[in-house]
């Protein structure tokens, strides 16, 4: 399942729903990305995520389908926020459930690595009185390269 929303989400509730009432799941892996109060030597006051409505949902659905094709997942979830967020708030949650841990762990890492370079989001950081668009990191490209076929 994928969801793109402006409202904050509750990591607890999302994870609980993933495996609620099921006894066939052996492993749940999850990743949460949060707004940090610093970027390098800059104090960050807030972060605004812009996205491309329509294409975002499409890409996230593709990314999730790709993970389900590569690993035997019993459930998966991507929740990504857009809009303005404060330090400490979750931006994105990805979670995977499988019978065994390898599939859950690898698919979880894949989802967030792939999403980082494929989903059309752009971060604007507010630092003091100025705002700055975050630059893409080479490290993100390299992380995604690990999963290319």
């Amino acid at each position, binding site marked *: 399942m994928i969801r793109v929303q402006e409202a904050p989400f509750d990591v607890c509730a999302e994870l609980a729903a993933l495996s609620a009432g099921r006894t066939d799941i052996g492993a749940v892996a999850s990743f949460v990305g949060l707004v940090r109060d610093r970027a390098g030597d800059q104090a960050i006051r807030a972060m605004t995520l812009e996205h491309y409505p329509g294409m975002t949902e499409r890409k996230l659905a593709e990314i999730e389908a790709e993970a389900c094709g590569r690993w035997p997942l019993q459930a998966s979830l991507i929740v*990504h926020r857009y809009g303005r967020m404060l330090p400490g708030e979750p931006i994105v949650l990805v979670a995977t459930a499988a019978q065994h841990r390898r599939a859950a762990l690898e698919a979880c890492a894949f989802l967030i690595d792939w*999403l980082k370079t494929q989903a059309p989001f752009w971060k604007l950081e507010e630092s003091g009185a100025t705002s700055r*668009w975050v630059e893409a990191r080479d490290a993100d490209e390299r992380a995604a390269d690990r999963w290319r076929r």
Partner: protein
Amino acid sequence: MRILYFAWLRSKTGTASEEVAPPAEVTTVAALMQWLAARHPGFAEAMAAPGVIRAAVNQDYAQPEDPVRPGDEIAFFPPVTGG
């Protein structure tokens, strides 16, 4: 053709979206970018740094040689930074 601009590219063009009708010989993403550069000096400036502008045609990533047609939704944006 509907053109969308995202993130700092939007400030370069001064608009988030526009309806355009380029001449018939504009049939690829690359040709469209050249044509848009003539309209928006800021877009031309951004194009000067190679590989900085990414494109999507009808909400799928596109390469310079990919075709564009009347009625398409074409988006331009910097490399993505979500997650």
